[in-house]
């Protein structure tokens, strides 16, 4: 069953002189329930725009977005957006516990939200850090807080915008392993935007490849690597290497797609 459906989604921005600038052109894709899909494309091709429209954070110019069969015009309760810049999405005046609780305290009240927050912090390996402030933690730990906050809302789907691009390479592997584990345990549906080919292959069931601006669907790639995967070992599989070569060639435009 398709959980998220984008149907001929187009995005244009008004242009003072001349016709509107089209950044996305008729992109259609469907993410099945429980599927992990990566969106891969060159920098600046509008991947984040796509994700924001899927999250109901940005209106589409044309086409439709559906989540669980409902047309999306505002952020739906089923899907939570995880931002690239954790320093901007975490609230520096709240400690880690209350940052996580922020996702739910408007629904459950502050006391219950704190209990949930503590449990979520345990799940992302941050037990005992509830009293710290975000700016006292490393970048990787801050992104863990953001992930714990997203999970606290108990979404069916995570929309992740290059969530690991702002941390160092080792921390990135660590966080990829974490997200693989959480995805499997919670049977989440994930749409993850990245420009990191290795990350896309390691994590995703399918990879939607976008063209340069205006972004169109270039290709839908079935990864086909066995699960459970390992953020490190999976990268040594011949299938991984072949797919990596193919995707890099396409993104670098070494041969025409």
């Amino acid at each position, binding site marked *: 069953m398709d959980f998220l459906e984008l149907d001929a989604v187009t995005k244009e921005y008004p242009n003072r002189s001349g016709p509107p600038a089209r950044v996305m052109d008729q992109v259609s894709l469907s993410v099945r329930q429980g599927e992990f899909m990566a969106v891969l494309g060159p920098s600046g091709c509008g991947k984040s725009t796509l994700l*924001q429209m899927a*999250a109901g*954070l940005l209106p589409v110019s044309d086409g439709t977005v559906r989540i669980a069969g409902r047309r999306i015009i*505002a*952020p739906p*309760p089923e*899907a*939570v*957006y995880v*931002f690239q*810049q954790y320093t*901007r*999405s975490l*609230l*520096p*005046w709240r400690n880690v516990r209350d940052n996580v609780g*922020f*996702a*739910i305290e*408007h*629904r459950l009240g502050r006391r219950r939200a704190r209990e949930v927050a503590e449990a979520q912090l345990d799940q992302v390996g941050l037990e005992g850090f509830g009293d710290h*402030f975000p*700016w*006292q933690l490393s970048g990787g730990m801050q992104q863990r807080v953001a992930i714990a906050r997203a999970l606290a*809302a108990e979404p069916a789907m995570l929309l992740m915008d290059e969530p690991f691009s702002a941390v160092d390479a080792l921390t990135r592997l660590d966080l990829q392993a974490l997200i693989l584990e959480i995805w499997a345990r919670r049977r989440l549906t994930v749409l993850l935007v990245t420009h990191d080919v290795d990350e896309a292959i390691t994590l995703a069931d399918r990879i939607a490849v976008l063209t340069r601006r205006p972004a169109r669907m270039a290709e839908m790639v079935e990864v086909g690597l066995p699960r459970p995967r390992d953020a490190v070992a999976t990268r040594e599989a011949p299938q991984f290497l072949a797919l990596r070569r193919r995707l890099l060639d396409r993104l670098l435009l070494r041969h025409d797609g």
Partner: protein
Amino acid sequence: MRRPVRFSSGVVLVAGLLALWEVSARLDWMQTPNWPPLSQVLAALARDILSGELPELAGGTLLRMAAGLAAGGTAGVMVGLLFATLPLTARLFGPTVELIRPIPIPAVVPPLVLFLGLDDAMKVTVVALTAFFPVLTNTMQGIAAVEAETLAMGRTFGIGPLRRALRITLPAALPYILAGLRVSLALALVVAVVAEMIAGEQGLGHYLVMMQFAGRAPEIYAAVVALALLGYALNRGFLALERRAIHWWFALGRQAEG
């Protein structure tokens, strides 16, 4: 081993100036009875404090100042929030605000006296008007500086606009708001005293004018010294509160520097 210097050179300069005051008055360098020695001023200050007269006057001045500051500050934050969240209101009321802002506040005292009389209502209003503008400007600046991602984060969790304003925008803008409030605080004391000097029979401002008419120089200077100490203490107290209220802001600043 050298002992660490306890007093900074700035404090030494203050002590030197105070000593110069005492000596210049004792030796009558100014050749005027209106330049009493510091010791006489301090004696007058002690007398007026112990008699309870000065504390009562200062208390009244401070109370009116605080009321005006609270009213004007709150209004500044609320109007700033309104202007920032509903751009239509900024377009509608912005020009009016910009026309009122440059009016020298003492100039509105006479017309306000006609409507509100000589006492508390007039003075609190004058202080509130003074406090309003710096807080308004800074609130709008602070709101403009809130990151789009931070607000989008609130939306993705289904948090409504009012709660987003109160729980994201307002705390994020608080460092700016407090900076505006600190400017307002300094202005508020000035304006409270000026209003008392112009109209009515209240507070330290009126006392200053009375002592001037009576030609009692030590009492005049005692009141000035009292005002200087009050202003200094208010600013220090505010800075301490600010450090507590937005400790995260200072922590982030230190991080960015180092």
